[in-house]
């Protein structure tokens, strides 16, 4: 078992021990009378467990993240130039070093050789590549003496680091343990401390979510900056064509892709907004309780279907059906030859619209339900019919919220990937014909990053610039939508 897992287990045992000792001690210092304690014994115990485990585990986590980086930096400078052959790089050599060092650790742990024997290994006498292969660690080439030396250095530093880790973390856990057990006295406000601990945990969770988002944005941003160093931004934002060419000299303009994205999204909204809205009106205003109990969950299930399934539906059902209507010349239903392939803007737009129906209807349903019953009563009480009431009172009152819902749906449509990958085609162009294949930002990101990719060429890096633009677009739409929806909620709260 590795040092780290032993350390973790030891800390957890100590924490459990602290839990019992502290609660015992709290009761005994109170002379066995629980009512004299400030908090329940459970809180004294939890407080001790918390102070034993959390600082120690926290430092351990940071140590585990930081140590490999530090060791690697030290070792990197000792790699002799001789190891860096033609077509290789220092990064590749470093990963070989790591593989050899880790392999040797495995050799020790499986008992093939002892720790001392691995330290005395010599490339002249043993075939280290074969030795490592024997324990399942594959190294790309024969291990040179210099390589072995660096790897041994790496191992030594890692060992040293682990020693220091144990030496610093174990006392930390012990100090936490001792202090918190000693503190378990009737006057100590363990309950409040635990409360603060829980608060800290919740704050940590919330900030992790936000921090990762920020990290994602920054990584996109850096890659995008790299892209713009290699490719003129004027071509990206204002150029007219998309023609990536892996031999270089590509046209990489977002505009044709943006056009495809927006065109497909508009068709999707034309399908989804009326149908979704009417469904919501029926469900919230007309349907009886039994229909509602049955239809609402059904719609929500529809919202949970993975989009790839919709994509398949586009590919095998909707696309061919459209071709039967608009294509095939004399054999087609209309006898026209307007559509040649199943992938088209209309195919993707229709299916995406179907995907968005439950989304629009469940949001609109919530919004329509938020319109106070008193307004409906007022209108009905004046002798208006239900549909007059809906058209003239409920919908105008719900309009801002519905606009917000539509914007949210639009931002989903813009970011949707699987349906357009399968249904829209791969040709980037400006065309107003919905029966032609077109392509979107998301599909191009997928295609630029699949297959063999070289993360230094503009043809690959353009994916990040596309992703960032998409992110900014959808973020903007979401912000506006949420603002409108929130404004609307306030109106009736």
């Amino acid at each position, binding site marked *: 078992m590795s040092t780290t897992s032993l350390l973790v287990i030891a800390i957890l045992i100590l924490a459990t021990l602290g839990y019992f000792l502290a609660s015992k001690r709290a009761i005994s210092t109170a002379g066995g009378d629980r009512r004299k304690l400030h908090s329940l014994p459970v809180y004294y115990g939890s407080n001790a467990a918390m102070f034993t485990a959390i600082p120690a585990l926290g430092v351990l986590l940071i140590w585990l993240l930081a140590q490999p980086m530090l060791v690697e930096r030290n070792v990197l400078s000792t790699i002799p130039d001789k190891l860096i052959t033609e077509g290789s790089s220092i990064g590749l050599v470093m990963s070989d070093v790591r593989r050899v060092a880790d392999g040797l650790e495995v050799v020790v742990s499986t008992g093939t050789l002892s720790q001392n024997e691995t330290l005395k290994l010599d490339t002249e006498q043993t075939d280290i590549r074969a030795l490592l292969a024997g324990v399942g660690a594959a190294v790309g080439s024969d291990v040179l003496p210099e390589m072995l030396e660096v790897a041994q250095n790496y191992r030594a530093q890692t060992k040293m680091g682990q020693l220091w880790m144990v030496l610093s973390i174990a006392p930390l856990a012990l100090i936490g343990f001792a202090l918190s057990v000693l503190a378990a006295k009737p006057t100590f406000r363990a309950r409040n401390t635990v409360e603060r601990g829980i608060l800290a945990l919740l704050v940590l969770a919330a900030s992790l979510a936000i921090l990762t988002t920020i990290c994602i944005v920054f990584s996109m941003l850096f890659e995008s900056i790299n892209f713009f160093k290699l490719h003129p931004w004027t071509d990206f934002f204002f150029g007219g064509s998309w023609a990536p060419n892996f031999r270089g000299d590509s046209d990489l303009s977002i505009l044709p892709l943006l056009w495809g994205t927006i065109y497909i999204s508009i068709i999707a909204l034309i399908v989804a907004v009326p149908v979704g809205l009417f469904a919501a009106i029926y469900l919230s205003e007309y349907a*009886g*309780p039994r229909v509602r109990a049955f239809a609402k969950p059904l719609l929500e299930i529809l919202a949970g279907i993975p989009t790839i399934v919709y994509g398949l539906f586009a590919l095998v059902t909707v696309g061919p059906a459209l071709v039967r209507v608009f294509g095939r010349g004399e054999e087609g239903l209309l006898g026209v030859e307007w559509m040649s392939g199943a992938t088209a803007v209309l195919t993707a737009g229709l299916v995406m619209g179907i995907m968005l129906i439950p989304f629009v209807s469940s949001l609109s349903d919530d919004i329509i339900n938020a319109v*106070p019953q*008193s*307004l*409906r*009563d*007022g*209108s*009905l*009480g*004046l*002798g*208006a*019919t239900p549909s*007059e009431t809906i058209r*003239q*009172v409920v919908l*105008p*009152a719900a309009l801002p919220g519905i606009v917000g819902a539509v914007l949210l749906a639009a931002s989903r449509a813009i970011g949707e990937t699987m349906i357009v990958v399968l249904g829209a085609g791969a040709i980037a162009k400006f065309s107003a014909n919905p029966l032609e294949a077109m392509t979107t930002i998301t599909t191009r990101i997928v295609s630029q990053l699949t297959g063999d990719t070289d993360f230094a060429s503009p043809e690959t890096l353009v994916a990040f610039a596309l992703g960032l633009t998409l992110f900014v677009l959808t973020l903007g739409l979401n912000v506006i939508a949420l603002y409108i929806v929130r404004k609307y909620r306030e*109106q009736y709260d």
Partner: protein
Amino acid sequence: MNDKNIMESHMGTTAIKISARDVQVYYGDNHAIKDVSIDIEDKTVTAFIGPSGCGKSTFLRCLNRMNDTIDICKVTGSIRIDDEDIYDRRVDPVQLRAKVGMVFQKPNPFPKSIYDNVAYGPRIHGLAQNKADLDDIVERALRRGAIWNEVKDRLQSPGIGLSGGQQQRLCIARAVATEPEVLLMDEPCSALDPIATAQVEELIDELRQSFSVVIVTHSMQQAARVSQKTAFFHLGNMVEYGETGQIFTTPQDPRTESYITGRIG
């Protein structure tokens, strides 16, 4: 005041506007109105009083079939307005509600301009020949709602922007604009301050000239001030019905007496 009411109702017409017989209302299994029979006179203010939950609103909502909008609600018995059974299958509840207007507990102006709020009913029912006609109807309704002077310069501003008392008078004007014959009011003053309440009460007294007004109230003083006839409800029964003055001075039923002396509430 009571003396005056008694005198007036003795002198006034006694034409029966609404006549209810053996009305039962069920919400699912909850028997909310039991065997209520009542004759409500034209051009009279009739007050429904009683402890909360006794079914006043429920019975009021039977009179314009607003209970139809509640799925689980079932009404039996007969209710006739101008000798026509309003629960007859040939009667269109939508048409009925135009004839029997309603004002609710909480002011509920639509999210529209003041003008459009009042014009709502006339537009739906096609009461106006042209724009000038509609302007006229709106102005007359607002005047009868005793709010014309306060809003005549801002007819296009939203109704929501008015104060609570103004909103309630706007809702009364809105109900009046459809030219109903009966006006039902469910605790119209319970969300209003005393000054606004006084204005609305004054208005109710004027409305009596043209309508039969039925008002639900939890305030006995209010019932005494505005009504000529009072019905006392208790646990779904109508316990006592008579001249307002008589109900408040010499109630016949011990339950009525307990209620108006504040022993049950």
